């Protein structure tokens, strides 16, 4: 098309506004630093030691948040499409069971599959990932083809997947897992997996068509449809990826615990959603970044670790966590209202 012929010098009527946008992560990062410093200060005052300068504590903290972090990378993408995934915690439980049942050693007389012991480590890992992906696929298909709200579809999956996890071994834990499998969850590996997953999807969201379409659907589903995006198919992809990542979290968690238990991952979906929201992902869709989610995950970890460090009751931890989540959303709403007025 000969649009070039129309090219004429542009009148720059509006002065360039030098409002060099700070990445929204900067704010969240400052919040993280602030919270850490408060604990540092309280540490010296109340316990008489440093909170931050303790290598072991930091390692434990990062390890603890890795599993939630892996989940929240998927959940962030779901929330960017304007949806929600309540099933992640249950899917973690289910996939932990499935993966562990294929990672048992032959020394154990009462293995779930006596014929399938001493399998190469890839087998349980792939089985866990596949189970998670299938759960996500079902979520996505329900949302895309029946038009039920994501809240309901994933609520159903949350209940059903937990039930399946319990049914799988009639509630018995799956133990005696191979050393190779256990290695996935030991040392620094969970952290490496978390950061790798975060990096991959950070790139995917920012630089690929998959990412652009994800934001488009969340920003305006109707406009996305009119722009030729196959919204249903794309949503299925996003939910399947979220399920796959929950599966990965299930694998990591069962490897770390060296056992699979049906009760694993209870309420993890809430922490994952909280991490995304604290990290600046908007529940109304179209806005959010993986970097923010990573920081949000670490904020949650710092708080848990800090409260433990100060020997504050677990009850208070939950109360404060609740307040922080609500405060994050209020701040988000406030920001949006201000933007609309501007």
């Amino acid at each position, binding site marked *: *098309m*000969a*649009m*070039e012929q*129309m*090219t*004429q010098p*542009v*009148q*720059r*009527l*509006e*002065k*360039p*506004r030098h409002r060099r*946008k700070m990445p929204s992560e900067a704010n969240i990062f400052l919040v993280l630093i602030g919270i850490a410093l408060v604990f540092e200060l309280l540490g010296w005052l109340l316990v008489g030691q440093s909170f931050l300068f303790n290598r072991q504590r930091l390692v434990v903290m990062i390890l603890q948040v890795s599993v939630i972090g892996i989940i929240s990378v998927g959940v962030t993408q779901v929330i960017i499409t304007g949806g929600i995934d309540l099933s992640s915690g249950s899917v973690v439980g289910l996939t932990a069971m499935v993966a562990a049942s294929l990672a048992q050693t032959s020394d154990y007389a009462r293995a779930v599959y006596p014929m399938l012991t001493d399998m190469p480590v890839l087998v349980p890992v792939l089985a866990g990932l596949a189970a998670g992906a299938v759960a996500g696929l079902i979520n996505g298909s329900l949302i895309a083809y029946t038009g039920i709200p994501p809240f309901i579809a994933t609520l159903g999956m949350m209940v059903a997947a937990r039930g399946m996890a319990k049914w799988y071994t009639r509630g018995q834990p799956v133990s005696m897992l191979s050393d190779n499998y256990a290695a996935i969850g030991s040392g620094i590996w969970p952290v490496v997996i978390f950061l790798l997953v975060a990096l991959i999807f950070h790139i995917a969201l920012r*630089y*690929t*068509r*998959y990412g*652009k*379409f994800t*934001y*488009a659907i969340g*920003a*305006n589903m*109707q*406009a*996305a*449809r*009119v*722009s*030729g*995006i*196959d919204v249903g198919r794309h949503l299925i992809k996003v939910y399947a990826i979220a399920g796959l990542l929950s599966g990965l979290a299930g694998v990591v968690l069962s490897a770390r615990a060296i056992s699979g238990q049906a009760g694993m991952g209870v309420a993890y979906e809430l922490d994952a959603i909280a991490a995304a929201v604290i990290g600046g992902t*908007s529940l109304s869709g*179209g*806005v959010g970044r993986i970097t923010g989610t990573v920081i949000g995950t670490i904020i949650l970890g710092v708080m848990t670790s800090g409260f433990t460090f100060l020997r504050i009751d677990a009850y208070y931890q939950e109360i404060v966590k609740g307040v922080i989540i609500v405060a994050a959303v209020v701040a988000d709403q406030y920001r949006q209202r201000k*933007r*609309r007025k*501007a």
Partner: protein
Amino acid sequence: MISPVTMRAVRDSGAVPNSEFLLEVEGVRKTFPGVIALDDVSFRLRRGSVHALMGENGAGKSTLMKIIAGIYTPDSGSFKLRGNEIELNSPLDALENGIAMIHQELNLMPYMTVAENIWIRREPKNAFGFVDHRALREKTEELFSRLNIRIDPEINVGELSVANRQMVEIAKAVSYESDVLIMDEPTSALTEREVEHLFEIIRALKAEGKGIVYITHKMNELFEIADEVSVFRDGHYIGTHKADEVTRDDIIRMMVGREITQMFPKEEVPIGDVVLSVKNLTLKGVFHDISFDVRAGEILGLAGLVGSGRSNVAEALFGVTPATSGEISINGRAIDVKTPAIAMRHGMAFLTEDRKDTGCFLVLDILENMQMAVLRDRYVKRGFVSEAEVARECERMREALRIKTPDLNERIENLSGGNQQKVLIGRWLLTRPRILILDEPTRGIDVGAKAEIHRLITKLASEGVAVIMISSEMPEVLGMSDRIMVMHEGRVTGFLDRAEASQVKIMELAAQ
């Protein structure tokens, strides 16, 4: 000026001042950002009369009505109710002062009974403070018998037909002892017999001395039910006449009688072969038997009143809401347009009517807004978007379309309506369409941007693009189109060539 509260107290005391006019509006002006919706408009409603408001889409009828109903506050002008100056600050203010609006989109709660809906907030209570259902029923029956309405007061509103719901709305308005009733195209969803019943009720209300503001596009209704008619055009008041002293032609002339002041940069370009051919396209209950051809380089205007099915035809062509029967062929080949993606694959592009609802990704930046459609088949390698290349193309588009923004990374919601529209046009031009469907391409944007968009459309046509342009603005349709297709109530009522087309002719076909 009397406050609404005082006014209400006076009304409740029963000492209703008697004045000839229920309502007198004078010199009212209302502006919205970038648009003057009403300018120096006057309007008077007599007791016991039906006063029709007429005008094209966007003439200002709805704005005036919303001012009377307390939804908008006018920027200036005076507003007298029963001879007293008053200022209404909310719809509730209006309601409590005896002005009730019967909404086009009905405002009833489907899971509550008819009686509960009518007396909501004012339910009769028994000694314990609970709702007295018997009294509720009796009050409703009394009201219905007065209006000659036959509906069971205890049935859920959700189970009623549209016509009956409308009756309930009217009864509700009357239950407030309103003496000004505003009806906005009340017959648009009614059958002939239901219309008859509605008119009976209107006559009964008239006999009680109430005043009715009646908005309609239908000429025959006007002569059947209205006593007076006021005509509006482009936010201006044109005139008021007794209904039995004017003819249909007078009114059409008043509605359209305007010079085409804007210059349209229409060029004569060679018209090529038929690109898009539509045969007997039907979407059950929405539009029927639509057939037309569009040729390369041709601009086909689509005229008709709001609700005539113009936009629905466009949506069916593009696969947004696929048609139920009929045939669409492109370059002679029949295609089944089930989704927008299929339409795009065949070279179609569709600028939707509603920028906010179906156009912009408000929270995303200009660059992302512009590239979203083209990414389907270009500028992507192995899933990765070629950022530099697409940014360069978008930058070119920005210059070509003169989008006024310092930075493509600005969120689109920070742009003016005209610039947003240009971004969306850019989105479609990047896909290099051969058939361009434009639904109200210049609605709500300023004159300068309008002219630029008109120039652009002409330019595209000269490059051989087939253009279908829906517009409610007569001068735009007349100025831009090679041919005009007029629709009325889901059917094509005629085609007009550029040479023979005039506002009067279009209006005659559009408002039969």
